[in-house]
């Protein structure tokens, strides 16, 4: 992946709880993901993976406990959010706009310098250059996922969050996704992926298993090889 990323951003959850009405989605979750780590989140549906990712993206506030971004101490929520790339269940793009227009809009919001050049590079990186001027509404699931990743990369994020990115992808799409995630990690980003897909577990150096809002298993953090940027 020909996308250079700056120093990465980690995230720490300290006895975090999240309540949606009567439902307790997260229960005293304590988890430290260091800058440069590649972590796979596993767990059955409703185990709290999406809530945890959206909390890491500062889109959901904890009902109790604290979320801290490592490497961004003292910075405001707005500034931290600008350094996070989120690829969600949905594509987070506008069906009515073309791929280029979608990226142009988000580049403008993020104040990306030389946006046309950045858009071209990101479109090349995700293999969408040929379809750049087609509206996103006509894209297949795999192409939408590529566009979603392009949107997340338009800002040169330091923390990348992927929420079940392999859902609905065919074999070829999954292979592409594996290579992309691996490339992003090698480029220096912290990558957190929620998944049911065991092939992603092979890529991630660390697996965290959630069940009913609790961390029930976390592979040894000490064995985690950090990304090149974080090792410096």
């Amino acid at each position: 992946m020909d996308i250079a990323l700056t120093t990465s951003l980690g995230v720490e959850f300290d006895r975090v709880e999240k309540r949606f009405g009567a439902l307790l989605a997260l229960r005293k979750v304590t988890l430290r993901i260091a800058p440069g780590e590649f972590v796979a989140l596993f767990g059955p549906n409703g185990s709290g993976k999406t809530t945890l990712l959206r909390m890491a993206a500062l889109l959901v506030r904890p009902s109790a406990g604290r979320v801290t971004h490592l490497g961004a101490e003292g910075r405001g929520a707005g500034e931290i959010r600008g350094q996070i790339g989120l690829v969600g269940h949905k594509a987070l793009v506008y069906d009515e706009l073309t791929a280029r227009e979608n990226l142009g809009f988000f580049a403008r919001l993020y104040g990306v310098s030389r946006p046309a050049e950045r858009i071209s590079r990101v479109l090349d990186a995700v293999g969408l250059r040929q379809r750049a001027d087609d509206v996103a509404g006509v894209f297949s699931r795999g192409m939408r996922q590529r566009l979603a990743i392009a949107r997340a990369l338009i800002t040169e994020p330091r923390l990348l969050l992927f929420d079940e990115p392999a859902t609905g992808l065919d074999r070829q799409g999954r292979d592409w996704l594996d290579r992309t995630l691996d490339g992003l990690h090698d480029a220096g980003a912290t990558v957190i992926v929620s998944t049911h897909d065991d092939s992603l577990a092979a890529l991630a150096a660390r697996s965290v298993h959630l069940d009913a809002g609790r961390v029930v298993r976390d592979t040894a953090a000490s064995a985690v090889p950090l990304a090149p940027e974080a090792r410096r």
Partner: protein
Amino acid sequence: MNLPRSAGAVLAKELRIELRTRDLTHTVLFFVLMVAGLFSFAFSPTADESRRILPGLIWMAFFFAGTLMLQLCFVREQANDTLAALRLAPIDPFAILLGKLLANFLFLAAAEIVFVPVFSVFYNVSVLPVLGRLILVLFLGTFGLAVVGTVFSAMTAQARMRELLLPMLLLPVLAPVLIAGVEATGELLVPHPSLAREWVSMLAGFDVIFLTATWLLSGFLVEE
């Protein structure tokens, strides 16, 4: 990124999507044309009756057209969870609301530009002698409708029964705008028209108060 630039980006995006899909344009044009036509044929009012009922009819038509339009304002952002993408951007949350409310204002104003002449013809009431003052009244009232409508659209976007909830919430809150708008418009359609300064001041005051409240509460309105 500064507020005008980010609000401008959101506004440009809204206009581009609408120009491409024309969802709101078709809905509003059809609705207002139906109201103008049906009421004209149902009542066949005299010139005097037209002057009395036209202000109320215009404002009620634009209010309900506005609620139809405003329903889609934040619901559109839910289809692909694009509101999350907007919230992730390092911009003032007010920029999201400001861009959307300006877009809603422009859409409603465009509908009014088309339909005030249509109402004028259907009800045989000339608005040309008071056009400048009528534009002022419509501008202030429509801006109030756009501000409050955008805020309530954001608040109800994730609610069940939001199609019913939005007009039910908007009607009482917008009552001062509707009353002031009808009264100020009515004063312009009588044989010796004048600008009702107290009603116009009320419209302007409403706009300033609700725009300020929107700015102050924007963080909560756009958050989770």
